[in-house]
């Protein structure tokens, strides 16, 4: 009876590690929202001497792969330096779990982003704030690398689905090389909006599909 999940995924799903909140954490982040179907909170404590993650906890509102990835990411990050932890990729998390179904990539990538955002949050709160850079085509492309193509489990950029990106006057236009009636068109559009709209100098995002 093969469920689509590996034994390791099911084990982490059933008994997730490091669940909960840290009171007054050094860094924290919430990725996703109930509206996009999955949500992960990540809390970290950092040892200022060694710059290592001394404690990490997570909470998940999501499906099995979301919960399992949240669990494994806390195990992978614990004890690592911030630089090391920041470099943990979705692929590494997925491999540590014995593989995730491709269609589930988009729900599990949130935990990876949650960890990175919690580290950024720590750095911002400790005087390491970066300057606000204006949004460029490359900024948008970078964010689209975090939008998963459910057909392949790889991101939109890598699977050549991004036909065109235009940026100007606070307006971003993204053309996706899929028919508007495609099975995954609505969910891809939603994820693009969620990734691009929060950019500080963007007021309007338009997603178009090819026919």
């Amino acid at each position, binding site marked *: 009876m093969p*469920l689509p*999940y590996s034994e390791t995924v*099911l084990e982490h*799903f*059933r008994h*997730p590690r490091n*669940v909960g909140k840290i009171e007054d954490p050094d860094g924290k982040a*919430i990725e996703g929202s*109930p*509206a*996009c*179907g*999955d*949500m*992960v*909170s990540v809390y970290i404590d950092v040892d200022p001497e060694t710059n290592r993650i001394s404690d990490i906890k997570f*909470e*998940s*509102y*999501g*499906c*099995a792969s*979301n*919960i399992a990835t949240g669990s494994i990411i806390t195990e992978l990050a614990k004890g690592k330096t911030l630089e090391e932890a920041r470099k943990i990729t979705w692929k590494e998390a997925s491999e540590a779990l014995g593989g995730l179904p491709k*269609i*589930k990539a*988009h*729900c599990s990538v949130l935990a990876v982003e949650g960890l990175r955002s919690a580290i950024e949050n720590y750095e911002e709160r400790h005087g390491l704030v970066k300057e606000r850079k204006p949004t460029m085509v490359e900024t948008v492309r970078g964010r689209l690398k975090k939008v998963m193509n*459910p057909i392949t489990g790889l991101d939109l950029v890598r699977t050549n689905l991004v036909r065109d990106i235009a940026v100007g006057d606070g307006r971003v236009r993204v053309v996706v090389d899929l028919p508007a009636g495609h*099975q*995954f068109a*609505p*969910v891809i559009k939603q994820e693009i909006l969620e990734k691009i709209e929060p950019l500080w100098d963007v007021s309007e995002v338009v997603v178009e599909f090819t026919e």
Partner: protein
Amino acid sequence: MSDRRQVYLDNSAATRLDERVLEAMKPYFFDKYAVATSEFAYSQGIEAREVLDGAREALAAALGAAPGELVFTSGSTESSNIALKGVALALGSRKGKHIIVSEIEDFPVLNSARALEKQGFQVTYLDVDGDGFVDLDKLRDSIMDETILVSIQHANQEIGTVQDIAAVGRICRKKGALFHTDATHSFARAPLDVGSIPVDLVTVSAHTIHGPRGIGGLYVRQGTRIAKWMDGGFQEFDLRAGLENIAGAVGFAKAVELATPEETERLQAMRDRIIDRILAEISDTTLNGHRWKRLPQNANISFHFIEGESITLHLDMHGFAVSTGSACFSRSLEGSHVIFGIGGDHERAHGSIRFTFGRYNTMQDVDAVVDTLADVVQELRNISPLGKDKATEEG
């Protein structure tokens, strides 16, 4: 985890075949496999024709129809396709190109409507209220001279709400539009008599009542303008080409015979118990669909702050099979259009679980799944970042 018995509570997706149905079908695989021919051919063919007509009579009678008004198909998907596209083909260039469907129809109707839209038809998707009912005044206002067909389901596939199709039918009749209803989930479970309800086309299927898959029916009221679009032979009153599925037809008729009013009562008792227990014993739960005007075999409940695929997977590990309207569970990664339709948000759709009962379920199954659910829901809520503030407030 100790009880490894599998408890199947997804009977609206598919049902276990009843042995008595299989026994009734068997002769038509091995001894009487001839094609149903005219009365001028060989004797096996004539007998096959009689058997097919006998099954047709039984099914037609269950709907209050004449035998000549019941067309066998391969299932409800095909029946609804024939209804929508057949009427569109017959009347599209003659009367008009407008069709009305409810926004919570199942995919055979919804996607047939969308396909017709691409071919130049205009489709009105009627919205529904918080319980899933279409607004009859809105329906009346939406029917125009060009409206050829209204398709509104008898009962909803996910939330179980049973529409007042008699009222819908009267409106359609009065305003001169044909009326199709998808009765896939209500046939033989909720009353539907075409003698008293002004309906022109009805989709039915065997797979929801412990009959075989691959056989369904379409009631077509005598005189209804409908065109054939799948070409082949002249079977099924020249509306549906293809070799007749005689074993399937016999099995379908047997399945209907076995779906008794006593069974309906038994299913309804299980439905009422699961709804009452969950709403009373598990906090932050919402019933989806109307409390009473719903299918006897359907309960659909949203568990707030947690996601449905996680719930179904935990239940599966405890031996219970249920389904969810969560996006994570669907092939398109979109949440249930039905829950959105009744005004639910993403969170309500994601946390919705459908329990559908059948012949092989018992009251013990109901109690067992509720007991397990209470633990599973608590476990997942412990992990969830949502709903925590409220829990603290309440202590």
